[in-house]
């Protein structure tokens, strides 16, 4: 039957066909577990895909926090503010100048338990005769609310209140405290007098 000597006349072999088989369930589980592990690994070691982050740092935030710097930022910033605005009258020693500019070092006004009056007099200025640590001084301080932000005022007050080099060691002042008082005193346009300021409650 199939005896035709010409091979091209014989029936051709059928081309092989790949069938389909059900993949085992464990393979899907394995792939899923590997993908999960891989994502976790990328998350831990990828540095957030930031080109600046290298081992041993894990994120940009960690790297930023690790830059060499000095520690107490509010205090250090307050020193800068003090040196640009306050140092002219109150001097680098914090002792002020006799008769006119009151001392900050050892001052009962500066080291008050709550900084309410201090924030007010920095915001709107003060004019008149003031008694500081038993010393009588007459002069004027300009208002600073236009020039200094809440953060500036808070840090400079933190600096003068906590400056142990001057012998002061009162609590810190936060920008929120300054913000609250600035809000309350928004309408005020005149400088305080010491007597008026003494009537204000410290912790308000």
């Amino acid at each position, binding site marked *: 039957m199939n005896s035709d000597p010409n091979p091209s006349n014989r029936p051709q072999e059928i*081309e092989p*066909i*790949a069938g389909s088989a059900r993949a085992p369930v464990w393979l899907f589980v394995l792939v899923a577990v590997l993908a999960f592990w891989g994502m976790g690994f990328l998350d831990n070691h990828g540095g957030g*895909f*930031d*080109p*600046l*982050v*290298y*081992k*041993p740092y894990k994120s940009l935030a960690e*790297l930023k*926090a*690790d*830059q*060499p*710097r*000095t*520690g*107490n930022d509010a*205090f*250090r910033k307050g020193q800068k503010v003090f040196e640009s605005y306050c140092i002219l009258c109150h001097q680098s020693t914090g002792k002020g100048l006799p008769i006119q500019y009151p001392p900050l070092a050892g001052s009962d006004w500066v080291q008050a338990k709550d900084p309410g009056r201090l924030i007010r007099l920095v915001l709107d200025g003060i004019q008149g005769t003031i008694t500081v640590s038993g010393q009588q001084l007459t002069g004027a301080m300009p208002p600073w609310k236009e020039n200094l932000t809440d953060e500036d005022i808070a840090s400079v007050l933190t600096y003068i209140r*906590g*400056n*142990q*080099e*001057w*012998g002061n*060691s009162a609590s810190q002042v936060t920008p929120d405290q300054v913000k609250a008082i600035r809000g309350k005193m928004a309408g005020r346009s005149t400088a305080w007098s010491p007597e008026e300021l003494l009537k204000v409650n410290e912790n308000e």
Partner: protein
Amino acid sequence: MNHGPLIFLGVFFALALSWFGLVFEPQLQLGNAQPTTNVVNTAELYPQRRPGLAKQGLDVYRSLGCASCHSQQVGQTGRTYDVALNDAGTNRAAVVGALLKVMPGATAAELEKLVAGPVPLKVLKDVTRAVADAAVGKLEPTGAKAEVNVIPTGPDIARGWGKRRSVAEDFLFDQPVMLGSQRIGPDLADVGSRLPVAERHLLHLYNPKIFEKKSVMPPYRFLFEKRKIGREPSPDALRFNSEFAPERDCEIVPTDQAKALAAYLLSLRADAVIFETPMTVAVATSTNAPAVSTNAPVAAATNAPAK
């Protein structure tokens, strides 16, 4: 082949994915990197282009296959923190009071002596960042100037191969980048600041055994010319100690290639403080001893040039 399109797509996506991960994404991240400013000296851009001779030296380095035995990448595995007191200020009593809180187990009398002594004073060593920051926070209000020192650590840094890890920025102007993969010799990422004298490198290329008896590095004598001394010795001629010197009437003069290679080695410095690698540069008067290099004594007293 009844699954032809499926196989094609599978291969295509596998290749596309690795292309994205290995070529495209790194290009997005680092492709348009620019020189940054040195954190310590903010007016200085880093990195600088290599000077012309050093750039030619890169080609010599490449052609001699230096990169097959020397890597140029320093690794870093961690970092530690020290707290240093840089200035004790004027109110010594307050500083001592703060130090008492910061340094456990120290007495006031000891601390007073320490504070009166030379600065910078290492207040704390090997602490966490939080402890270091808290200590500085306590010291600063006293008028003292304290600082958190960041010190990179790792096996490579312990060997003295660098002060910090290598980052992409270090290789910005190099074409090609000679990263290397094997470390038969020491890492060269920071060799220019480790051994800052050109003649030291030239002598080492001429005969590595001068500085390291057990060196397996081949001598590169063909980079030098041995010739009879003419009327006067050449100013470039190498100065040997007696053991390795050539005959009395001969001198060894480096060729242009050797000079270029030495200039390239001198230009290999990865010691700028940039944002990616925070570290505190040791002050000259600091007690930190310079790290000792394992493979090359810096003070090669007998061979060092006179100037």
